[in-house]
């Protein structure tokens, strides 16, 4: 569906995307993770054919992104990071108006608009002006708008940022539905849980480069491990762990021990190190993310 080779994007001296390779297959959910400024949005905008690449090659649906932008854009649905609904129109008219840009006949457009309004549970707001919508409703409407042309490929740049848990779950559920119908989705997110739940494959980007690629489970297993045991990072705990030659990491106020055998470590900590409290949890994508991109702020 999407193939990028040696893809580069520069803004003057800033290298936003640094010679990356990736390939998105039909029917999968492909996630881009990375700290602020990693180059996710720059990459999305190149796939959307709205931002020209500096170097390399990029094909979408087998077509070169700069030679055939209209043909490609006809079959893409875009949820941009920044909202850009048309404030001069109501909720429903935003959909109808957008349908026009895709040459969808007006009766078909109103049928699809009503369908999408009910799909994203926006019917009650259909005659409301955009300015009166909350952030979460705007996001849902943008997703509806992205679906108006029945796209083969959906590109979602932080689709759920700023949403409450209910709305986020609604969007997850809808996206899963779309994927079962054979849609392909590319998304970026800062929510690791979202990526782990939704994505078949993810890449982790930092400073314009792709650091790792794989399924969320495989990445967790390969780069972190099975379980993480956490305890307060007191001097006694550290000494005790060092005595027993157990490797650990310090993350803020906590020590973290990665292990395939959480029982052994927990027992040891509780009995040998006289701890009152330890926590055991499965390793997650967040651990992978922090391990790869560090704990310092980027921007």
């Amino acid at each position: 569906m999407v193939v990028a080779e040696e893809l580069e994007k520069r803004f003057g001296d800033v290298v936003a995307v640094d010679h990356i390779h990736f390939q998105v297959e039909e029917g999968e959910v492909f996630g881009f993770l990375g700290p602020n400024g990693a180059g996710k949005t720059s990459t999305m905008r190149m796939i959307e054919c709205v931002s020209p690449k500096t170097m390399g090659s990029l094909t979408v649906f087998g077509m070169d992104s700069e030679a055939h932008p209209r043909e490609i854009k006809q079959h893409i649905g875009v949820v941009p990071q920044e909202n850009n609904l048309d404030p001069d129109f109501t909720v429903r008219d935003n959909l109808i108006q957008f349908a026009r840009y895709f040459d969808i006949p007006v009766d078909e457009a109103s049928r699809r608009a009503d369908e999408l309004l009910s799909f994203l549970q926006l019917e009650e707001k259909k005659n409301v002006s955009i300015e009166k919508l909350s952030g979460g409703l705007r996001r849902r409407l943008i997703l509806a708008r992205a679906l108006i042309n029945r796209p083969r490929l959906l590109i979602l740049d932080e689709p759920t940022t700023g949403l409450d848990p209910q709305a986020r779950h609604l969007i997850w559920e809808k996206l899963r539905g779309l994927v079962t119908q054979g849609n392909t989705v590319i998304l970026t997110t800062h929510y690791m849980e979202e990526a782990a739940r939704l994505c078949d494959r993810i890449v982790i980007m930092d400073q314009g480069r792709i650091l790792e690629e794989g399924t969320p489970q495989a990445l967790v297993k390969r780069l972190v491990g099975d379980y993480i045991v956490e305890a307060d990072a007191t001097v006694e705990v550290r000494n005790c762990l060092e005595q027993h030659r157990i490797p650990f990491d310090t993350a803020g106020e906590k020590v973290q021990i990665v292990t395939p055998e959480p029982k052994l470590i927990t027992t040891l900590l509780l009995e040998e190190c006289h701890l009152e409290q330890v926590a055991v949890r499965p390793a997650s994508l967040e651990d992978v993310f922090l391990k790869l991109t560090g704990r310092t702020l980027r921007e």
Partner: protein
Amino acid sequence: MTPIVRIPFSYRFGKVWRRNLVTFMRTWKVNFIPPFLEPLLYLLALGLGVGSFITQVEGVSYPRFIAPALISIAVMNAAFFECTYSSYVRMYYQKTFDAMITTPLSIEDVILGELCWGATRSFIYALLMFPVLLAFGVIDLPSSFLIFPFSLLAGFLFASLGMCFTAVSPGIDTLNYPSFLLITPMFLFSGTFFPLNLLPVPVQIVAYGLLPLTHVVAVMRGFCLGILSLDLLLSITWLAIASTLLCPVAIHLMKKRLII
């Protein structure tokens, strides 16, 4: 690089034009007041007020002298302000253009649609002023009908001019500069309220060489008073060439600003 010649324009510019028409018509009541009211006020103040001191200018009564200028100014303002402040709001604050270019519309379609809409606004203004001026008996038929197609050409030129400023303006406030430094002088020194030949020759040369409104007023005056001379053709050619040059510049500058 693939050696494909891609035509950046398509019929889709009409969709952008239509979007603006739809939003304009939704508030048609307020939008239609100024073109009715403005000629009325100007004719009363300048025509009857100032005009009572003036018997004739270039062989016609003062109200008849300024009537074509009033249309010209309205045509200029309609297109210029549409494609500066209004387009700027759509581009920068509403991100309408950003949304449009994620669809099969190209940036060229979007800007051409905006320019055509600017020209259409000029046309609408001319259309609405027409009956008022006719009622005052200050324009002649049937030659005055020519102002309608002409308002589209003149409007397109001012739209392109405005769009160039929109494209390079860092903020909406800096759009005040072209309004003060270009539009206001044009409003006063383009043969609008007094004949150009009263001014020093160098100023006349500048007015004819560089100020589009001078040519617009000359042509409008010819049409409204039914004096069709060869000079009008010259002015129309000047305006057509200027539009042909400015439109691609406007599109190029907008592309440079938005496609990054």
